[in-house]
């Protein structure tokens, strides 16, 4: 009998297609926006996690710039010395520190014969220590990491085709690095870095295409020095550091800032008005979370409002339907329908509207979510820089599909209770006389 009453409710909906659809719109929009929010949220979260999990989760960037929220690192200002690096390494919550010296290159050259050279524009080389590998969570695919004080470099996989796809550079090849000051340094390629499947933010920030030891490449470079005429000191604009464990990232940060602000060399070399800045991965993630949570709160409230409006719409149309079908209700009572049969007839109908709204809303939300991700990816490309090669993959949080449909049905039932009660409580004599 339940199935039959259910089918009758369906028939009633089918006979008023336009009305049913109009009633559905509110629920569709409400459910649809919930699905869009959850889809965008889960996709962006997965994207962020991918971006950052490649980089060591205990990692942080130390620089000079403006403290505040958000903090900014000016890559131009230099001040950290090798002495600072050593002192920072001794802090109890700091596991490892690597300096980053930016070395602009004039060219990278390959000698193919006695007088035959191939030359390519060089970009920027990173002068650092082997510790960088661990801090950035990178791996060597072929060969090994460079050693300090040797004419060795490592490069990213994509760089190996610098002189042509047909003749990729191999471990053991000899290259000539020409600095901006013209100095040519003979170099051996000792390792090729494993390319991560997803380009991550850190690899983009550093665009770690070529890296080598500070000595000899960087320490002899005029642009790396700070200090007076008589006392030249090699200095760096950025340091990468690694905390001992996830629980002590903030402690490490405080220790670092404390050292830098009290007894560091950098304190003397930096501009008076600049601050030391430490950006941890956790800070960035919390920022992203903040933005996404504001976004989802906003859209969730829109969704709630439209669901309430949708529910009221259903209730309204159900009251109209009950009134319209008054005589039918009387007739059904006359031929043996009990009050609860009448009640369920209308409850099924409104639940059905909710279910339909839920299902259509999920479909709308799923396609809307895909659309939003597409727009976000477009935006990321236009944004350029660190994010430009990243791609947010569409990730549905499917449990929300089910929750949304159930929610739709619940709204339908809630909205239907009063009209259905009205129908069930009718006096059959009055109902039959209704015209």
């Amino acid at each position, binding site marked *: 009998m339940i199935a039959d009453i259910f089918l009758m409710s369906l*028939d009633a909906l089918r006979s008023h297609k336009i009305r049913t659809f109009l009633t559905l719109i509110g629920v569709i929009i409400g459910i649809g926006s919930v699905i869009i929010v959850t889809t965008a949220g889960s996709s962006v979260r997965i994207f962020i996690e991918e971006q950052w999990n490649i980089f060591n989760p205990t990692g942080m960037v130390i620089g000079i710039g403006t403290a505040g929220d958000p903090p900014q690192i000016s890559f131009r200002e230099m001040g950290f010395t090798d002495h600072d690096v050593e002192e920072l390494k001794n802090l109890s919550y700091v596991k490892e520190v690597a300096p980053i010296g930016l070395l602009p290159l004039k060219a990278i050259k390959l000698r193919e014969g006695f007088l035959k050279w191939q030359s390519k524009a060089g970009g920027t080389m990173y002068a650092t220590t082997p510790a960088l590998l661990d801090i950035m969570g990178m791996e060597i695919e072929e060969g090994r990491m460079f050693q300090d004080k040797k004419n060795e470099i490592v490069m990213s996989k994509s760089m190996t085709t610098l002189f042509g796809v047909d003749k990729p550079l191999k471990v053991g090849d000899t290259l000539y690095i020409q600095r901006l000051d013209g100095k040519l340094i003979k170099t051996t390629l000792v390792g090729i870095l494993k390319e991560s499947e997803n380009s991550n933010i850190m690899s983009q920030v550093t665009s770690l295409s070529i890296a080598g030891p500070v000595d000899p490449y960087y320490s002899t470079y005029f642009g790396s020095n700070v200090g007076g005429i008589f006392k030249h000191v090699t200095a760096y604009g950025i340091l990468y550091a690694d905390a001992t464990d996830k629980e002590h990232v903030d402690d490490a940060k405080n220790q670092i800032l404390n050292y830098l602000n009290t007894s560091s060399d950098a304190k003397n070399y930096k501009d008076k008005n600049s601050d030391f800045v430490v950006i941890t991965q956790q800070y960035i993630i919390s920022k992203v979370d903040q933005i996404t949570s504001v976004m989802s709160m906003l859209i969730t409230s829109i969704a709630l409002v439209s669901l309430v409006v949708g529910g009221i719409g259903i209730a309204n149309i159900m009251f109209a339907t009950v009134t319209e079908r008054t005589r039918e209700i009387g007739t059904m009572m006359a031929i043996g329908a009990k009050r609860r049969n009448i009640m369920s007839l209308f409850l099924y109908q409104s639940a059905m509207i909710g279910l339909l709204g839920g299902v259509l809303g999920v479909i709308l939300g799923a396609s809307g979510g895909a659309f939003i991700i597409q727009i976000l990816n477009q935006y990321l490309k236009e944004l350029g820089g660190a994010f430009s090669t990243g791609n947010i993959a569409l990730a549905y949080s499917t449990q929300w599909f089910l929750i949304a449909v159930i929610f739709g049905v619940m709204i339908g039932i809630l909205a239907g209770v009063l009209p259905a009660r009205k129908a069930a409580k009718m006096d059959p004599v009055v109902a039959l006389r209704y015209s």
Partner: protein
Amino acid sequence: MPDDIAIETNSITKIYGTSKVQFRALNNVSLKVKRGDFIALMGPSGSGKTTLMNLIGCLDRTTSGEIILDGQNLSILNDNQLAEIRGKKIGFIFQTFNLVPTISALKNVELPLVFGDMSRVSREKIALDLLKKFGLENWARNLPSELSGGQQQRVAIARALANNPSIILADEPTGNLDSATGLQIMKYLASINKEGKTIVLVTHDNSLKKFANRIITMKDGEISEHK
């Protein structure tokens, strides 16, 4: 009480309205209808004939007095039990046919059996047989709006018979039909009566008197004439 009494009313009174404004629709009406009777309830509008029919049909409750249907005292039953009696013992036929517009003729006939919780297969067979009996087998899948008035009323009669009730209550069944179609409907009612159903026909059309074996005329809530 002899077994051949289908309907018995013992000085029933029905008062509508609030304590301030009251309308006495029925006053002390006592009546016995034998099994297989064809009663015509006549009288001007407002005379109480429809009220009497509604009370017999378990759609309403008396203010005082009792109604006994097939030996069952209605005044002691609750809403659900009354609904069950309506579903099992009574078949209603209305002036305006009152078919459910969103479902087919067949489903309309099946409806009382749906509420009576019968399985789909058996009730479809019953409904189809009934439609066949009234020459509507080719219209079974049509919606009521696709049928003529006479056809709709035949569907309604089929529906009234679906539960195999012992009493058929017909309230102006020909009121919305032309006289030829009305006559056809009355002939169907007469044949149903011959099959043993007790029929109570509410009408103010004098030409229908001839189908009844008893005529009860009402006036101002009381029985004024009994033939």
